[in-house]
């Protein structure tokens, strides 16, 4: 009986550890899902050191597939170059696939910062040609319910990074 109890507590312990691991990733995903809605703001880029002020950058985020995926779109009236990014859980990983206007699909894995405000995605791999460069890194920072920031790093041909920072305000 004692050994059965011991075994049972071991099983429960391992299950709770598993649940903790999952819940960290799930927590990151749930945090990102709070961004669902429409956003607009300005964008600053490095190395060009250019700031496009105003509401030129528009982003929409939508939880879809019964909450199993979050669709991110940089959007303004269905322009042909609006890239789409899908965020989803893959086991104990939070992944992102970016459908790039450069014609490829990089994947990145996300990790939440200890303060729970930032989810940073690091490059995993890429499908398709990288002849015209590819997206390489992404960071989502939740400021409050109506403000968030996004940082996207695009690797230009020749592996020269171009960084874009977007300060976004909720419109819906």
């Amino acid at each position, binding site marked *: 009986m004692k050994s059965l109890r011991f075994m049972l507590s071991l099983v429960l312990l391992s299950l709770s550890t598993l649940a903790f691991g999952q819940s960290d990733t799930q927590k990151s995903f749930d945090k990102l899902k709070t961004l669902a809605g429409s956003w607009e703001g300005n964008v600053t880029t490095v190395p060009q050191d250019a700031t496009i002020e105003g509401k030129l950058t528009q982003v929409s985020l939508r939880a879809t597939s019964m909450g199993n995926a979050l669709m991110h779109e940089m959007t303004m009236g269905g322009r042909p170059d609006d890239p789409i990014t899908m965020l989803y859980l893959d086991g104990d990983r939070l992944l992102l696939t970016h459908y790039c206007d450069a014609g490829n699909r990089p994947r990145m894995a996300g990790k939440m910062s200890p303060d729970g405000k930032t989810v940073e995605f690091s490059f995993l791999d890429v499908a398709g040609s990288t002849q015209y460069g590819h997206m390489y890194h992404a960071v989502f920072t939740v400021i409050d319910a109506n403000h968030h920031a996004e940082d996207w790093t695009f690797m*230009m041909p020749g592996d020269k990074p171009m960084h874009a920072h977007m300060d976004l305000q909720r419109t819906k």
Partner: protein
Amino acid sequence: MDREWNDSQPIYRQLRDRVVAMILDGVLKEGDPLPSVRNVAAEYRVNPLTVLKGYQQLVDEQLVESKRGRGMFINVGARNLLLQGERQKFLAEEWPRVYATIQRLGLGAEELLDAATSQSSSDAAQSKTTESNLPEEES
């Protein structure tokens, strides 16, 4: 600039090619400013990041420079740099095909020069007609 885009390469690359063509044609001269990202994005209904990527490509190729707070400008020597590159590209990629066709058709140097001369005269006549159709400048 043409507003139509094709699917053969990313828009940022097509944008870069259009600016390059404008430099080669003398529409954009050395020292001229590039249109602002905001204007190009709004006018051609493309993502501002696409425009920035196109401009960044031109910066990487040293054809354009970014002046803090003032915008992007065509570099001195940009046209020569482009001509050098484009000539090499023509000789390496297009000329072998053209030369093969010339050989296949048995065209001689004299025939080719005649054709080039008549093409030049026809171009000149056409540009004269276009000029005479332009409204006269008001004094």
